[in-house]
C-alpha cells in the first residue's frame, strides 16, 4: 500500500462536519468472534467444494452392457490374443526372405523372446491393419487355443450392438425390463 496522502487536511478544508464525524467509532458491529472463525469456515467450505460428497449413481443398462463386454476382454481373452500375436509376428519373421542387412531368423526369435506378451500385444493392436486375416486365422489354428470357447460368438461392432439393443428393448414389455434391471 502506498503512503497515505493527506485525507485529514483535505477533509478539514472540504467539510469540518465530516472531519469531526470521522473521529467517531465505527457504528457497524459483527457477531462475537466472527473474524476469528472466518478462516476455518472458509477453509472447510473450500475443502467441501473441492470434494463434493455425491450420492452413488445407479448404473444404466448401457453401463452394464459395457461392463459385460469389458469383462470378455480380460484377462482370459487378452492372454489368448497376446499368444496369437506372438505366433503371428514370429511366423511373419520366419517366412520373410532374408537380406544381408537384416537379422537372421534365429536372431529375430531371440529378440522376440525378450519382449513381454503385453508389448507384443500392444504392437499387434496398434498395427492390426497390417496383418492379413488369413495369417491371423492360421496363427490361431496353430496355437491350439480353443477360440470358440474364449471368444464370444458375437460381432463386436458397436453400431450393430446398438441396433440390436434398440430392437431388443423395443420388443420387451415393462415386466421384462423390470426383471432385467
Amino acid at each position, binding site marked *: *500500500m*502506498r503512503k497515505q*496522502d493527506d485525507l485529514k487536511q483535505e477533509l478539514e478544508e472540504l467539510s469540518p*462536519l465530516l472531519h469531526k*464525524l*470521522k473521529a467517531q467509532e465505527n*457504528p457497524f458491529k*459483527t457477531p462475537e468472534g466472527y473474524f476469528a472463525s*472466518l*478462516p476455518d469456515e472458509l477453509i472447510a467450505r473450500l475443502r467441501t467444494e473441492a470434494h463434493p460428497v455425491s450420492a452413488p449413481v445407479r448404473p444404466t443398462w448401457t453401463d452394464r452392457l459395457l461392463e459385460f463386454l469389458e469383462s470378455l476382454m480380460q484377462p482370459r481373452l487378452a492372454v489368448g490374443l497376446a499368444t496369437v500375436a506372438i505366433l503371428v509376428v514370429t511366423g511373419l519373421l520366419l517366412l520373410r526372405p532374408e537380406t544381408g542387412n537384416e537379422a537372421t531368423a534365429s536372431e529375430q526369435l531371440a529378440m522376440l523372446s525378450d519382449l513381454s506378451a503385453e508389448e507384443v500385444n500392444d504392437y499387434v493392436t496398434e498395427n492390426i491393419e497390417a496383418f492379413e486375416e488369413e495369417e491371423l486365422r492360421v496363427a490361431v489354428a496353430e496355437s491350439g487355443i480353443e477360440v470358440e470357447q474364449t471368444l464370444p460368438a458375437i460381432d463386436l461392432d458397436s453400431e450393430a450392438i446398438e441396433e440390436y439393443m434398440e430392437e431388443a428393448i423395443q420388443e420387451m414389455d415393462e415386466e421384462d425390463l423390470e426383471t432385467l434391471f
Partner: protein
Amino acid sequence: MADQLIQDEQILMWMKDDRQSERGFRLLLQKYQERLYWHIRRMVTEHEDANDVLQNCLIKIFRNIRQFEGKSQLYTWLYRIATNEAISFLAQKKRQQVSSLDNDESHLANKLRADAYFDGNEVQVHLQAAIKGLPEKQKLVFQLRYFDEMNYQDMSEMLGTSVGALKASFHHAVKKVETYLSGVQID
C-alpha cells in the same frame, strides 16, 4: 513499506503453491479479511449480506490467485474483486425488490435503527442515509476515500479513473453529504 511488500510476496508464493495454498490463504485472511469485510459491509449495509459477499469474494480470490500477475498491488486487486462482488450482489438485490421504496434513504435509516449489528447514533444513521443517496460512482469513491482511506493513486489503479476525476468525484460527494446532513433535524 518493505515489510508489507514482503508479506504480500510470501502470501502469493504460498497461495500459488498447491502444497502451501491453504497456509498462504490463511495469511491473506489474517492481513486483509477485516478490511475487505468493512469495505463490503459499508456497501451492502447488513452483516449477513456482507458475510455472504465476503465469503464468495474470498473463495474467488483463492481460486483465481494465479491470475494475479503483479501488475497492480495485491490489495487494489483484492478491493476490485470485493467491489465487483458487492456491486453484483446489490444489482441482484435491486431486481428482487418489490418496491422502489426499499431502496430510499428513510428506509435505510429505519433498517439501521432496527439492526442488531448497528450501534450508531442518529448522526451516523443520517450519514449512512446520505451516502446511500449518492450516485453509484460517487458513493464508491466516497466510501473508498472517507472510510477505507485509500489514496487517490491506488484508487485510480483500482477503478481505472484519473486521479483528477476521482478528486472531483470525492469533493462533489462530500458537499452532497454535508448538504443532506445540514438539512435533517437531529435530536
